[in-house]
């Protein structure tokens, strides 16, 4: 894609926002410019500090602010609300480039855009959008998304966090687990059961500011990868919020969650692509420089085959991701494609992370080179926002529907 990108730029192509598959080969000019500015930022500001952020588990406060100023923390949000007013393809490109510089920062960008702002943009009232989106476009504040619980991850319909109405307030009780951005967030979209008898149709979505009385954070998880992000439990003990803090109609929480995750999948696919690309870049560069048996190891077929397999994995996942994003932008159904993109990209990331260490040999195993960080960062992409197993269920479900007699 780098070659096509260069060729596209060299030919000075000025393709306006077309939606057809033929445009997958060349991005529209605005998208190319946007991709370039994100890449420049990632190369100059994130690449040099990514190792430190990972080692010291540091949330990139300054960088998130700078990304906010660039519009990257709210790519799809309309300008009137403080966002960049661009489309989902642009968002996917932004997340990929940022993740290429630093997987953790890419995760923060993705969670804020897709999981926090996403549902409010789609289901919120104008007042809710102004209150809960606009302050979160600048990078000064980030949000999080609380669906998973200690007792249910993939089994989202079994939410045991409860919400009861008391006068003009909702009172929330329960525990949410694995919440990304938790320790750095200023608000959360949270899901709780308002009508237990209705099972998953009895779940509603709420907006809760952070910090807030009745909401406390569990200890920060000590993770394998994306260590610059904070992941912890959210504990609700008689957490009171105004009635106006319900997001969308009562009982639509599960639907909101599923639709949010559908889009979020494209964000995570993009993050996985960035990590995969970084791993490939690292391996390809090393193949030129490291000599063995009298020549650069890039001359050896075993290494060449690995690099080729990595490149194919990344490129095919990238095209799937772009297609899903373009379908979403065209307001066409994209559930199956988004699941395919997330599945392909996350498996490409773990594959590339693994092979990159292999190409680097011993150097891949030490922290002097970024290969080990890419390997660790990649792993989560197959788990969160829908495990690879769930993605397969989603894809099969959609596929079988298409073939139903």
């Amino acid at each position, binding site marked *: 894609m780098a070659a096509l990108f260069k060729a596209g*730029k*060299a030919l000075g192509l000025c393709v306006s926002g077309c939606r057809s598959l033929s445009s997958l080969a060349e991005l529209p*000019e*605005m998208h190319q*410019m946007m991709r370039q500015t994100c890449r420049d930022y990632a190369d100059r500001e994130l690449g040099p500090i990514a190792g430190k952020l990972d080692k010291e588990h540091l949330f990139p406060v300054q960088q998130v602010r700078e990304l906010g100023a660039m519009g990257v923390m709210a790519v799809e949000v309309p300008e009137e609300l403080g966002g*960049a007013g*661009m489309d989902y393809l642009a968002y996917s490109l932004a997340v990929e480039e940022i993740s290429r510089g630093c997987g953790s920062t890419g995760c923060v960008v993705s969670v804020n855009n897709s999981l926090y702002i996403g549902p409010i943009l789609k289901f919120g009232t104008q007042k809710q959008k102004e209150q809960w989106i606009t302050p979160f476009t600048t990078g000064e504040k980030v949000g999080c998304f609380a669906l998973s619980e200690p007792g249910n991850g993939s089994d989202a319909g079994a939410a045991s966090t409860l919400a009861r109405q008391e006068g003009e307030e909702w009172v929330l009780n329960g525990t949410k687990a694995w919440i990304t951005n938790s320790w750095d967030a200023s608000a959360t979209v949270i899901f709780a059961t308002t009508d237990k008898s209705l099972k998953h149709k009895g779940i509603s979505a709420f907006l809760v500011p952070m910090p807030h009385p009745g909401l406390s954070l569990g200890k920060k998880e000590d993770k394998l990868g994306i260590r610059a992000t904070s992941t912890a439990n959210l504990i609700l003990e008689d957490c009171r919020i105004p009635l106006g803090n319900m997001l969308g109609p009562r009982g639509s929480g599960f639907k909101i969650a599923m639709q949010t995750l559908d889009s979020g999948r494209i964000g995570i696919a993009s993050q996985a692509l960035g990590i995969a690309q970084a791993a490939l870049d690292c391996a390809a560069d090393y193949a030129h420089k490291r000599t063995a048996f009298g020549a650069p190891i890039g001359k050896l077929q075993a290494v060449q085959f690995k690099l080729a397999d990595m490149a194919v994995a990344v490129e095919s996942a990238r095209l799937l991701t772009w297609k899903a994003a373009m379908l979403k932008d065209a307001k066409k159904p994209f559930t199956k494609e988004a699941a395919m993109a997330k599945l392909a990209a996350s498996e490409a990331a773990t594959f590339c992370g693994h092979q990159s260490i292999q190409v680097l040999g011993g150097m891949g195993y030490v922290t002097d080179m970024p290969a080990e960080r890419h390997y660790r960062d990649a792993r989560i992409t197959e788990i969160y926002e829908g495990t690879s197993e769930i993605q397969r269920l989603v894809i099969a479900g959609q596929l079988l529907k298409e073939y139903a007699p």
Partner: protein
Amino acid sequence: MSRVLVGVKRVIDYAVKIRVKPDHSGVVTDGVKHSMNPFCEIAVEEAVKLKEKKFIKEVVAVSCGPTQVTETIRTALAMGCDRGIHVEVSGKDYEAMGPLQISKIFAALAKKEEASLVILGKQAIDDDCNQTGQMTAALLDWPQGTFASEVTIDGEKVKVVREIDGGLETIKISMPAVLTADLRLNTPRYATLPNIMKAKKKKIATMKPADLGVDMVSRVEVLRVDEPPTRLAGVKVETVDDLVAKLKANGTI
């Protein structure tokens, strides 16, 4: 104090490894990543800052070359310039284009656009000529503040702190004037996403050098381009006397 012209040059990206063409007529440019000359980025940033401080009303980004240079103009627009001018030069004229031709074009445009300032990068990273700014000022008979590391507008005058061999020199020149940007003048901003969207709607006018009465004939002919000679291994010596003896022996002193 209304309008500033900023020159932006499309050059091979600084990170690319340059390769000489097999026929030694130049360097390989096909399929190679290009971007805005870093000193031109600094020039654009300074112009946009002057506009933000309300010293000027309009910033016009200018580039000379084939269709591809419109990308560079578009980047300048995304950084905050108001409109662009693409002076079309292609083929042999483009290959032979140098500071003399560019400065003639800029001089003509500066008069046509009634610019108060022309801001350029001090030099381009491909040819390293460091001549265009100076030539433009001479053709216009305007004062010049080159190698600027600080620019302050003071009424109808400009105070320029220049980086020179001995350190820093401060001069005060009247406008209209030509300035060339040095490295420490500022840190160019990243094009923000909203500005990239806005840049889509900004206009880029197209014209030819002939429209400005400029002839593109070059007085310089490139005979041959070669890579720098491979650096040979050095020799270690034990004492200063040995060093002097060796330098004398190989004719250096």
